[in-house]
């Protein structure tokens, strides 16, 4: 009997038009969607022109990307621009996008991985790549998505193909049990990083299944996939279900589009007899609100064991700044004040989330509590243009990396936690358990 296939194997098989299994070496893998931020976009464009212009010329063609409708540019890391060079890079991308017919998003439209799903740019069953390691976020849609470097970016602009791709094996994370009060997707994934270590899923796809995953909304699923790269997973993926399709339908309808049979036909799910290199069982009901201590995302501890002083709280990033994240933080901060010794910085994950938070009174709650609110961008997580930490500073962040020096000084200390932990910590000025601030009945 032919063994079943994982969702990853099925997506590659669909793209190749023939059966592919884990371990197979694919000489040229066609990619469905490709997006660039303003960090890698400019050098990738310049290298594309430098390395391929003569090939187009000798073929009697003008320089032309493989398919502009499959490419998007999303400036997000240090916007509004923080330096002359950054502005030059964004200008270069905008000019190239206009010349080639590529969609160019504006500064403040949002973080690339948030826009890619909110705009239904990436769809279930597609292969999507982008010049950022957190491209794995799109795995929550049931797409095979991962980060690439500058050179692969320029190659993809030319041919739309990824070369010498080995179909990865998968680890199945089987998650069951109901979350305790005050526990969210972020706590689960930090707990899993703690179990696995920074290299624990190396070269393999982290595939998440089980009743706990089924019960999560799409936003929680994005958070889990987003952080999976912190255990060096090739990427993360989840099997699309009715929630996935409802999310994608809503995203399409905001653009006046509907899901076609062709789009729906791209989606795949793992067979029950698919082969996994490893199965990891996780009991979600045993997890407490969790923080990762300096200087590793895998350095996870229950929040009840930590009371360290915190100078700066960042609620934002591609990990945790969507509607549900801001909602839980606003519930905790409503009618309360940020500690006089602590700065709270709130950055919604996209312009859409920002405007939604404004319309629904959340921005007022944050402002009344004493928060600083910025337009959508990667913020302090990129360590370049805002919220930079000094030596000795301690920051609690809802982002995904707490490496030494990530947000400024290598002598600063970064802790990772959920939006609920961030809000409670902002109030107390030290790492705090969010459960005591949750309204009665809130879970």
């Amino acid at each position, binding site marked *: 009997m032919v063994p079943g296939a994982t969702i990853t194997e099925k997506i590659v098989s669909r793209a190749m038009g023939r059966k592919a299994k884990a371990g197979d*070496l694919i000489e040229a893998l066609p990619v469905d969607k490709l997006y660039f931020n*303003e*960090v*890698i976009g*400019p*050098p990738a464009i*310049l290298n594309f022109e430098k*390395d*391929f212009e003569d*090939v*187009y010329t*000798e*073929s009697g*063609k003008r320089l032309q990307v*493989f*398919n502009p*409708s499959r490419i998007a540019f999303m400036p997000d*890391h*240090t916007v509004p621009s923080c*330096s002359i*060079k*950054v502005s030059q*890079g964004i200008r270069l991308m905008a000019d190239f996008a206009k010349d080639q017919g590529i969609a160019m998003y504006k500064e403040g439209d949002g973080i690339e991985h948030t826009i890619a799903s909110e705009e239904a740019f990436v769809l279930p069953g597609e292969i999507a790549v982008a*010049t*950022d*390691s957190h491209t794995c976020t799109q795995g929550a849609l049931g797409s095979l998505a*991962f*980060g*690439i*470097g*500058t*050179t*692969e970016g320029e*190659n993809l602009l*030319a*041919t*739309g*193909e990824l*070369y*010498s791709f*080995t179909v*990865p094996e998968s680890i199945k994370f089987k998650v069951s049990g109901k979350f305790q009060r005050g526990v969210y997707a972020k706590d689960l994934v930090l707990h899993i990083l703690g179990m696995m270590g*920074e*290299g624990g899923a*190396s070269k393999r796809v982290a595939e998440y299944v089980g009743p706990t995953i089924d019960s999560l909304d799409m936003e929680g699923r994005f958070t889990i996939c987003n952080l999976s*790269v*912190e255990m*060096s997973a*090739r990427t993360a993926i989840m099997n699309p279900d009715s929630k996935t399709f409802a999310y994608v339908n809503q995203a399409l309808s905001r653009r006046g589009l509907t899901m076609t049979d062709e789009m729906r036909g791209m989606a795949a799910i793992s067979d029950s007899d698919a082969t996994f290199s490893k199965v990891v069982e996780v009991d979600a009901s045993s997890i407490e609100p969790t923080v990762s201590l300096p200087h*590793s995302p895998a350095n996870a501890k229950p929040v009840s064991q930590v009371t360290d002083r915190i100078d700066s709280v960042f609620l934002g990033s591609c990990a945790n700044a969507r509607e549900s994240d801001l909602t839980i933080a606003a519930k905790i901060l409503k009618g309360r004040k940020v500690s006089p010794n602590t700065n709270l910085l709130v950055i919604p994950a996209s312009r859409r989330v920002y405007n939604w938070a404004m319309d629904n009174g959340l921005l007022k709650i944050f402002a009344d509590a004493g928060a600083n609110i910025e337009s959508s961008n990667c913020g302090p997580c*990129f*360590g*370049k243009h805002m919220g930079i930490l000094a030596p000795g500073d301690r920051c609690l962040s809802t982002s995904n*990396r707490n*490496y*030494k*020096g*990530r947000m400024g*000084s*290598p002598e600063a200390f970064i802790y990772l936690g959920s939006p609920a932990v961030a809000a409670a910590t902002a109030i107390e000025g030290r790492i705090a358990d969010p459960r005591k601030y949750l309204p009665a009945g809130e879970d």
Partner: protein
Amino acid sequence: MQMRGTVAKRFGDDINTDYIIPAYLLQESWDKQFFADHAFEGYDPAFGPTCRANKESIVVAGNNFGCGSSREQAVYAIKYNNVVAVVAQSFPDIFFRNCLNNGLLPIQIIDTSGISIGDELVVDLDSHSIRDNTTGTEYPIIATDAAIETMKRGGFLGFVRERLRQKLKAVPMRAPS
């Protein structure tokens, strides 16, 4: 095909690309050499001068070297300090592919603990092995034939240019979506 070099630096496990080149520099230049000048700036500022002291240096590490961010500038930061190879026990995929694309050899062996700073290593891609001339120890390289071939070619560029040439001959390049 052989490459030889002197071990200039040793690292432990989980060295991430933020340590290799901090983010605040990434957008400030499109010149690869710029990143070499700032390699390991906040983590090990002696990295550049130490590696440049040899004509051909080799960096040795434990598990998971180059984890985290996809920034290819991390490879430039290492390579343009006279580093020809990184020998480690494992590499995450993105960093490994970025190395291949830039002709920096990402050499995986089972155990790097017997290699010391100052050792002379010979990387022999034909025999899939490296030899520590100082200790006389030989280590098999863990790599697919395809990866070894790419290392010998110094990347994919020639292949991609040929692929593009073929695609441009066949019109249209790809059915419009």
